[in-house]
């Protein structure tokens, strides 16, 4: 069969196909999910994540006002697990790569900031990681919970954003020192 005939035949293939069962009930269940169930600890964690915006601003202030060389204090290694999604899926390779690269550089980046800033950053990351762990546990028990899935995704983004912010800030500090 030549190319033209193949393409002509392809255009005759059905583009509208009726599913073997009605898929609406599953969709209706997902979109009509009642407002978030009682989930106080996780809501508290999510609220904490939102507060990170403010905390990050504080970190920015502390780092930018303090250009003097800092005493480096070694702290226990931060442990990051592979980003997963309710133990069912892992985050995509793009996220994993960016996350791994930032985590690998984190210790070196933290050594460039003041002890106070470092403590703040580590505390914020701890809050995020705890929130992620809690949401993953909840998702493992309720894998179809769309609200949880979205919240977890947002928290992963927050984590990535904070890691990027740390990386960007320390680069800025280095540039000022260089000048």
């Amino acid at each position, binding site marked *: 069969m030549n190319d033209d*005939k193949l393409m002509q035949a392809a255009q005759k293939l059905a583009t509208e196909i009726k*599913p073997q069962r009605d898929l609406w009930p599953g969709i209706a269940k997902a979109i009509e999910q009642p407002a978030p169930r009682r989930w106080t600890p996780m809501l508290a964690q999510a609220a904490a994540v939102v507060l990170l915006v403010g905390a990050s601003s504080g970190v920015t202030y502390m780092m930018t006002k303090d250009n003097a060389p800092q005493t480096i204090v070694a702290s226990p290694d931060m442990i990051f697990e592979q980003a997963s999604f309710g133990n069912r899926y892992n985050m995509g390779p793009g996220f994993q790569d960016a996350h791994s690269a930032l985590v690998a550089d984190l210790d070196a980046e933290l050594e460039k900031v003041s002890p106070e800033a470092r403590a703040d950053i580590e505390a914020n990351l701890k809050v995020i990681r705890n929130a992620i762990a809690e949401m993953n546990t909840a998702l493992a028990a309720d894998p179809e919970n769309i609200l949880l899935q979205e919240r977890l995704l947002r928290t992963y983004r927050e984590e990535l954003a904070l890691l990027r912010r740390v990386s960007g800030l320390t680069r800025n500090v280095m540039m000022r020192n260089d000048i």
Partner: protein
Amino acid sequence: MAALLTAVSSDYSQAMTTATTDEYAEERALIRRAQNSDSRAFEGLYRMHIDRVYGVCLRMTGNVSEAEDCAQEAFIQAWNKLDKFRGDSAFSTWLHRVAVNAVLGRMRKSKREQDRIAAVTEVTPIRVDTGDTGDMRDLSEAVDRLPEGARHVFVLHAVYGYSHDETGEMLGIATGTSKAQLHRAKRLLAQQLKQQGFEA
């Protein structure tokens, strides 16, 4: 006779135009209501578009249960993003893109999950019924057997008529890659169909 034909043709066109306009107006009304969180209106949109959404999901995945999940996911995503639909393009086009993204999103799932699906499929193979008959069924099954990248490009470009630019944009690949994948798909399909003694 010519006048009669013209009159009939004209009436037919008018009827078709009216029907199309009515359908469009009905769709617009359903979209507006759904954007105000009316799930019954959204069900109306689902009934209007499910066959096309499921069609692209089934063609792209080549797997009934995966296609069902993708179609459901597409409508859930569409519901969540409905406020972003401004009507710049046809709703069906917008929904089609959401469906393609839903398929690609599922493809990015963990290797473990893919293995689990593959294992289940291996044990309980489900025949993919696309509604195609005769030679078209042979072609349809050959498309299902294409490697993922080639299959996605072939389905979007050759079956659904998207340009290489649009196909590349939807799949997140370069236009040139889309062309190369189409070439590969055609070569593999020709080989498969030749083995089956398919002549056209």
